């Protein structure tokens, strides 16, 4: 048993310091608001503290356990408020190359559209994308973290990516990597 599991506060603080950014960033990406992410961060570590005796490193990694609690907490919370839209007024989209001003604005708009499209997803779909494309978790790890079958992970990622692309207007051109 790890020191923090036996109730050592200093060890728990060290654990918190080590993982607070990971949990907070994931919570922010899954919920879309800072306010929710702050609440989730607190709730996750309260859960970790209260359930410290139940964690068994032989059954799975600590990170996967943290992901699982984070996802559960994010899905449990009702969406409090949608983030404010990003500024778009006065921007003139353009499609010509090497016309810097218009292209800058058009590219920014595309990026912002992606963030908005992401925001339009419900949290369980958003969570699966965050676990895969931000944390680089394998499908099996995602299945473990979200407590869903592997086949569901596979179909949900495929479906959500297509949905996202559809909301972006079905752009098939690969550019600007």
């Amino acid at each position, binding site marked *: 048993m790890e020191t923090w599991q036996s109730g050592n*506060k200093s060890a*728990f*603080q060290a654990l*918190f310091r080590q993982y*607070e950014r990971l*949990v*907070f960033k994931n919570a*922010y*990406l899954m919920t879309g*608001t*800072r306010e929710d*992410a*702050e609440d989730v*961060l*607190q709730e996750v*570590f*309260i859960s970790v*503290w209260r359930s410290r005796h139940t964690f068994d490193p032989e059954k799975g990694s600590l990170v996967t356990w943290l992901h699982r609690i984070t996802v559960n907490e994010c899905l449990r919370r009702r969406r409090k408020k949608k*983030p*404010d*839209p990003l*500024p*778009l*007024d*006065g*921007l003139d989209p353009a499609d010509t*190359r*090497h016309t*810097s*001003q218009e*292209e*800058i*604005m058009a*590219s*920014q708009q*595309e*990026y912002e559209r*992606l*963030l908005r499209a*992401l925001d339009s997803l419900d949290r369980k779909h958003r969570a699966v994308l*965050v676990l*895969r*494309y*931000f944390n680089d978790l*394998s*499908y099996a790890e995602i299945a473990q973290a979200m407590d869903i079958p592997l086949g569901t992970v*596979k*179909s949900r*990622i*495929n479906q959500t*990516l297509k949905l*996202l*692309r559809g909301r972006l207007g*079905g752009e*098939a*051109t*690969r*550019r*600007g*990597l």
Partner: protein
Amino acid sequence: MNCATADGLLAAYLDGELTPETKGQVQAHLSTCERCQKEIEALAATQYELRQALKSTADSVSPPSQAWDELEQLVAGGQRPSFTRAWALWLMERPWRIIVTILLIIAIVLGILWGLDVLSARSNPTGQGQPVSSGASWAKSFEDMTELCAASDVIALGMVDRVIRVTRAQPSGHLYFTDWAFRIEKVLKGRVTEEVTVHQTGAAGLGSEIAEDPLFRRGERYVLFLKRGAQEIFYNLGPWGRYKVVDGRVYSVNRALEYRTWYFEEKLDFNGVAQDDFIADVTEVAESPRLTFMDRTRLPVDVFRTWIGGTITSDVAFWTGKYGPGKVSYTVKRVDNKNGDNPVPLPEGIRFTITPAKFTTADPGLTYESRVLIWVSPDTPGGTYWVSVDYEFEGAGSGHRIITLHVDS
């Protein structure tokens, strides 16, 4: 395998999550189906952009600095009282708190009605009010001054002079923008007139304001790092794009505005640096020639990801700094690590072309863009490659930029 079956497996194929047998079946189908090829290219592009967007968004946030203190109290106290119970106890402690709470509720309701335009017309847009903070997802954070300078079209010292206009994002929306007149005292990079318009989210007295990048105030002096928008309207590069100057000293947002700007903890943290030193350093960085690869948002990027058989297109910008006119030529070579220590042959299956690879610059202070095409043949082994793009600039010496290329198998 038919299209319907393949279509359901494309993301897993790209993510390397199929069994060798199924992967072979999908590959065989892709080699004969143009529609599914286009579909997988589009999905790969979406995956790539999604990774970039998630990373940039995550880079822009950090947990609040007091998070542990609050948590410690909660875990130290054992079971927490419920919120409702804690609130009730707090109210009962002092009777006047009940009255104040009722008044606050009335004020909040009135505020909501006011926000919904149910009540009277807006107040004077230039008036000072209590801002309502909102979050912001910055397109990118900046690691150091070099990266910040590269992303800026204009860097200038000046003073916030006045409000030019306040606009509303949507007719019935609650998001406002303020265009400020910024009077230039010294230009550190770029070409601008003596006064520029700087666009900022939020409006004094009207509610919305970005907490991490609060509204300017008249008379404040800043060194601003600006991106040029349409119609000569400039945008500062988020909280990283503003450095307040007070009594000849320079302060980053976290120091100047007393807001919890956690992201300055490790980078671009200036707390009372002498103005002349700051300007000299920024100028030196800004005047040096520099290569920058750009992502879709036209912001710097050094890591590219594709898959075997995939193609990447990008732009690379050459900033001439204080040099020119002169001739620039690019050469591309593979190196064995991200520090560019040793050249090694690029696999035959990877083609890396820059067009144009040679050009002539005019006056100093200009940016020239070339198109980059990276093609990875289907028989190239997956893995991570580092590619150095070297430039030779007549009269200004040479330099290079190293990018990381991940080829997923």
